[in-house]
């Protein structure tokens, strides 16, 4: 378990919580410390409770835990919401001069530092810098070199001019000095810094970056939480690479525009969340049957219906696997951490174009809103390869024409993959349709041709199974009796839980699966284990159902559907309970 510090800033939506937290996370990253952030937030613009939490260590951190060491509380509710996570040595920074905090009493044995945030900010140049004063105070308390905060402030406010940057730096110092002068205590933490060079980014940004690196040059979307980050990341960047982002009138249009862009020859993507997937599912069959490459990013959130738009869930697995009428060949990729979001985005585009079918790239709210540090080498641009599959041009087109010179976009081939020609290419004109069709793309109800085309489309999946790597990621003790299976974003918390379980002499093997379809056959692994436990953020165990189906074995299930992601310590306890071991609660 890493030597970590857990820090948070909380208040009302509209208090600037998000940017304040991000500034601190950035400063830690610049100081060569690892960072893993999380957010508590509601679907509203103002009011309500919101918090930005930062876990930091010199070692890599990949999850959140149930512990808060330093809390900047702009409201009483921030404290109330986090009572369970506070401990006797927790430090709460608050502004007793703020009317709503004037009666504030620190709970239990926690240490309260009353800092006149607003007044000090006004002295430094403006009340708007209230949160920056708090950040300065937090630096003093945590023994963190305030110069790293300066760097982060320069980055954040550099575009607004030197005076603004200087004011913010002064505000931060005022907060730090106030704590040092008014409170007679030495900082209980001493945040070590390193020379390591890290990048800090969230899952939405990683997907956007992966898409750009993969040559995505056409994006159409309709804003939806928590997928909008992908669109906002691409906007303003994709243009530098000759691409475009289009905001459509609805998700139906977004996915059909993506389809139109792809048919005209662009690498194209859309991103949405569950409610958008519902609408886009209409077009899914057309994408598959017209054999058009398309990447649909689904950033899952809590459903059904509008559900809890700002909460975590992995409830769309069946929707992605089975959504749409008829039988639709598709791939479903589920990156297991933020760096993997980048790599799987690249892979999604290559798979889509090589096999000419729709590919779901799915992350979830917890990946989308988490900022995490990585070594820059984990995003190796040089290693990105672009494979556009079987695209023909005027020289190769002759190989794919019939005796009349007609192009065969759905040619029956051994590997199931047919050629693609883009509009404007001489000799490549063809029809494409959502109707069943022959090799030329002309509609048909001929029974033999129907069977040939269905088989051909299915064969692409078989080909992909053979040619591509659909492996899993593995952690922990490969020989352990207990096998934990995870998909998507649970990997980080479970990885850390492995260490916690080891302290209680419980060894586990963790298999983290990034491919939902096609997926690795885990029969041998499940049979080798005495106990298999599937962890996922939904109530019914959709992935567990798949595993039971694949392996013909029963598995145990740990499900969480409260809207909050798994925490490492919580998972360790759940695994212990599943294994019949005494848990902390019982002990």
């Amino acid at each position, binding site marked *: 378990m890493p030597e970590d510090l857990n820090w948070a800033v909380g208040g009302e939506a509209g208090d600037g919580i998000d940017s304040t937290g991000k500034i601190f996370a950035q400063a830690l990253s610049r100081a060569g410390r690892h960072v893993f952030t999380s957010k508590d937030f509601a679907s509203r613009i103002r009011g309500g409770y919101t918090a930005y939490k930062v876990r930091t260590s010199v070692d890599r951190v990949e999850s959140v835990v149930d512990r808060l060491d330093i809390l900047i509380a702009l409201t009483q509710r921030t404290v109330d919401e986090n009572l369970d996570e506070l401990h006797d040595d927790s430090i709460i920074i608050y502004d007793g001069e703020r009317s709503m905090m004037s009666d504030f009493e620190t709970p239990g044995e926690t240490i309260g530092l009353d800092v006149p945030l607003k007044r000090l900010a006004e002295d430094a140049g403006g009340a708007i810098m209230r949160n920056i004063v708090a950040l300065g105070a937090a630096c003093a308390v945590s023994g963190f070199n305030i110069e790293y905060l300066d760097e982060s402030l320069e980055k954040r406010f550099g575009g607004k001019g030197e005076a603004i940057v200087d004011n913010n730096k002064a505000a931060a110092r005022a907060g730090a000095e106030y704590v040092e002068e008014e409170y007679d205590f030495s900082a209980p933490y001493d945040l070590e810094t390193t020379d390591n060079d890290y*990048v800090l980014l969230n899952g939405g*940004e990683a997907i956007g*970056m992966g898409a*750009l*690196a993969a*040559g995505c*040059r*056409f994006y*159409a979307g309709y804003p939806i939480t928590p997928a909008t980050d992908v669109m906002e990341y691409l906007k303003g*960047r994709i*243009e530098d*690479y*000759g*691409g*475009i*982002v*289009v905001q*459509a*009138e*609805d998700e*139906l*249009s*977004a996915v*059909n*525009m*993506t*389809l*139109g*862009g792809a*048919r*005209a*020859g*662009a690498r*194209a993507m859309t991103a949405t969340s569950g409610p958008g997937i519902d609408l886009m599912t*209409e*077009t899914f069959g*057309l994408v598959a049957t017209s054999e058009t490459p398309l990447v649909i990013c689904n950033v899952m959130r809590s459903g059904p219906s509008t559900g809890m738009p700002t909460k975590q869930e992995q409830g769309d697995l069946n929707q992605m696997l089975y959504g749409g009428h008829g039988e639709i060949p598709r791939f479903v990729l589920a990156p297991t951490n933020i760096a993997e979001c980048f790599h799987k985005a690249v892979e999604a585009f290559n798979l889509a174009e090589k096999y000419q079918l729709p590919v779901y790239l799915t992350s979830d709210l917890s990946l989308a809103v988490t900022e995490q540090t990585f070594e*820059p080498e984990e995003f190796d*641009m*040089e290693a990105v390869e672009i494979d*556009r599959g079987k695209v023909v*041009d*005027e020289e190769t087109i002759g190989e794919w024409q019939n005796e*009349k010179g*007609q192009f065969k976009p759905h040619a029956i081939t051994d590997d199931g993959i047919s050629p693609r020609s*883009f*509009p*404007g*290419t*001489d000799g*490549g*004109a*063809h*029809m*494409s*349709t*959502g109707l069943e069709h022959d090799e*030329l*793309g002309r*509609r048909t109800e001929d029974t033999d041709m129907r069977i040939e085309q269905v088989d051909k489309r299915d064969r692409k999946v078989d080909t992909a199974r053979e040619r591509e790597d659909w492996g899993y990621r593995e952690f922990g003790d490969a020989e352990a009796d207990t096998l934990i299976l995870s998909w998507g974003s649970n990997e980080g918390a479970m990885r850390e839980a492995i260490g916690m379980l080891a302290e209680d002499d419980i060894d586990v093997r963790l298999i983290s699966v990034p491919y939902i379809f096609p997926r690795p056959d885990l029969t041998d692994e499940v049979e080798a284990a005495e106990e298999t436990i599937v962890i996922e953020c939904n109530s019914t165990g959709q992935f567990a159902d798949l595993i039971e189906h694949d392996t013909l074995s029963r598995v145990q299930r740990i499900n969480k559907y409260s809207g909050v992601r798994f925490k490492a310590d919580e998972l360790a306890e759940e695994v212990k309970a599943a294994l019949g071991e005494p848990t902390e609660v019982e002990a």
Partner: protein
Amino acid sequence: MSAFNAIDADREVDREEYTPGIEPQATWCPGCGDFSVLKALKGAMSELGKDPEEILLVTGIGCSGKLNSYFDSYGFHTLHGRALPVARAAKLANPELEVVAAGGDGDGYGIGGNHFTHTARENHDITYIVFNNEIFGLTKGQTSPTSPKGHKSKTQPHGSAKDPVRPLSMSLTAGSSYVARTAAVNPNQAQEILVEAIQHDGFSHIDFLTQCPTWNKDAKQYVPYIDIQQNEDYEFDISNRQEAAEVIYDTELALHDGEVLTGRYYQQEGRLSYTQEKQEIGEMPEEPLAERYHDDDYEWERCYDMLDAHR
């Protein structure tokens, strides 16, 4: 010169080049107005010298959706109501393509109404032909968005309780920069209007009256028709939105009184298309993005500097 060798080939194109070699006879009913759309489109494209392989013809679902089965070019038969998003995106990805979308009145004014509104509003430089027969034909005769009030059908046996949509008014209000109505029975006017619409820079909408002799027997054959440009009762300035709106209103009312008015209603010159607007604000490359892809020697940009923003 485009990387796509069929684009701007600049040659004479015989209208028979648009007739596919292998497709069986059109499955439209004898006397169907859809034949006239096909004929007019072939004539217009030939007149404009468009190579079949620089044309993308995108259709929706219904009898109208079969248009590209009988027209040899790049064709994409999409979903009910969704032809426009596909068509306009293809145009964005490759503005050098000649993109035409087509669908029925149910497709464009019903299920795809939102896309119609927004495509018109955004003024994409594409042509949209709506086959308006005031009925659902392929599903055998149900009430459509343009069926007149009181029209009896299997789904409205006591007569439709709804006023029909006003397609031309909708189009004008939504922002189409070229609005016209023609009729299957008037092939010369149809071809002229299609030529104009295709040449027009911006979103061109043609409400094409296509009689359905099978399922809309009591409907007119859309004769006699009046060409408003040839009739002195309808002198107005087609670049004037207010004047156009009035004539359009009269036209929509008159149709249900048995008077078929056709012609050009509105043309707005000089308004930038969506592509041009995006280029103006630096959000779209001058070079068609599809073209970069098509170059075999294309060096994919590496995005090293993207990471720097995250340090």
